């Protein structure tokens, strides 16, 4: 009962958000009748998502075959949620998809292009003027946060590589790795030639 209550709350909240994005709602209608299974491997979370025109239904139980299944760790799914390029995160980083991958791709595309009107939702509570100002403050904060993060990454890298010389420069590491790859390939080629030579010697000895 408790899990069902949580699912109901989650479903209601997601649908409220989706209703601010008419394009996404219309796109979801195209997936009506499909069922997507989500399985989070390192948490007891397993549910089914049923899209329809105007939102989604979430179920804990579905007694028939599903269109596609998504399986991954909590980290994989959270990266997917936070990623700017969701296609890369979904298909390249740990989320395993089985079943009809074409329909799974459609769902991914819809989720990826969803644009929730947070300002509109805030405006319903606070009024237009305050919501607009809050959105400006939030956007400015976000921009500043991105600049700070980028600057911090550069400074830490420079400190570790140049000041205390704990780490080599990226180009140096990349060169070293490329040298190892070349050496590895040369070793494999040499091994193959030796095998060929040995085979020829054995053949000559038999005749």
């Amino acid at each position, binding site marked *: *009962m408790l899990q*069902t*209550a949580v*699912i*109901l709350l989650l479903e209601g909240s997601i649908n409220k958000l989706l209703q601010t994005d008419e394009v996404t709602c219309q796109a979801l209608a195209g997936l*009506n*009748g*499909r*069922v997507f299974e989500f399985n989070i491997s390192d948490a007891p979370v397993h549910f089914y998502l*049923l899209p*329809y*025109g*105007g939102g989604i*239904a979430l*179920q*804990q*139980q*579905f*007694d*028939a075959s599903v269109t596609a299944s998504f399986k991954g760790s909590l980290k994989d799914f959270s990266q997917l949620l936070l990623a700017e390029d969701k296609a890369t995160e979904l298909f390249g980083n740990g989320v395993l998809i089985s079943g009809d991958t074409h329909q799974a791709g459609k769902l991914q595309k819809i989720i990826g292009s969803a644009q929730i009107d947070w300002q509109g939702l805030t405006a319903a509570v606070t009024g237009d003027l305050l919501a607009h100002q809050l959105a400006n403050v939030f956007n400015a904060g976000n921009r500043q946060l991105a600049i700070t993060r980028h600057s911090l990454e550069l400074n830490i890298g420079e400190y570790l590589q140049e000041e205390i010389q704990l780490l080599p420069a990226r180009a140096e590491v990349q060169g070293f790795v490329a040298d190892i790859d070349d050496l590895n390939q040369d070793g494999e080629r040499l091994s193959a030639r030796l095998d060929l030579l040995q085979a020829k010697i054995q053949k000559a000895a038999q005749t």
Partner: protein
Amino acid sequence: MSQADKDTTDFGYKEVPKGDKVKHVADVFHSVAAKYDVMNDLMSGGVHRIWKKLTIEQSGARAGMKVLDIAGGTGDLTLRFSRIVGSSGRVTLADINDSMLKVGRDKLTDKGAIANIEFVQANAECLPFPDNHFDIITIAFGLRNVTDKDAALRSMQRVLKPGGKLMVLEFSKTDNPMLSSVYDFYSFNILPKLGQIIAGDGDSYQYLAESIRMHPDQETLKSMMIAADFVNCKFQNMTGGVVALHTGIKP
């Protein structure tokens, strides 16, 4: 003496002529139709949504199925079923009461759910559908208002496809004495007053409390379903038995 052999039937705690129960029940629902959803949320603290959600999940409904929602009222189950069965499926909302049907139709139209739903005014005892027609039949909080429950179960069995599932979600009996006394106090002292304040009709909610007490308990309803030729009959108690979900399959 079986229900079918008697000339009178229960209307809450009262015995009324069989022919009159339909009219009495109709009056109750004409009176409360407009405030039905608000009252449901208030009376159950929103828990009725969880009971219905569990029913949907256990129905096994999928795209393309035909579903009959008897006593569908304001369409809570119908709305969810219509989203699951999609454009290739069909949901029929049947209710004997035209006021409830109108409220349900308006509510579903407002939510944009019209394409795969039809509305039928029908008596559960003699359903106006062909034999072996539906994949799933649900009746949520409706069976206790039916005059001849055995006839209704037989009628549902007839219109269900072989292998189809009947689901009866209904108030039932708690086996916890503490919960029972709290539930009784709530039902007979608070519920009618809530009904009076919100829906302007305390008597209808007095009937609701009485009709729940007069409704067959879990085991009796299960045996009635077996008698109507359903197999694999079972029930699942919810909220300590305040509500039970009975399921049966047409062989």
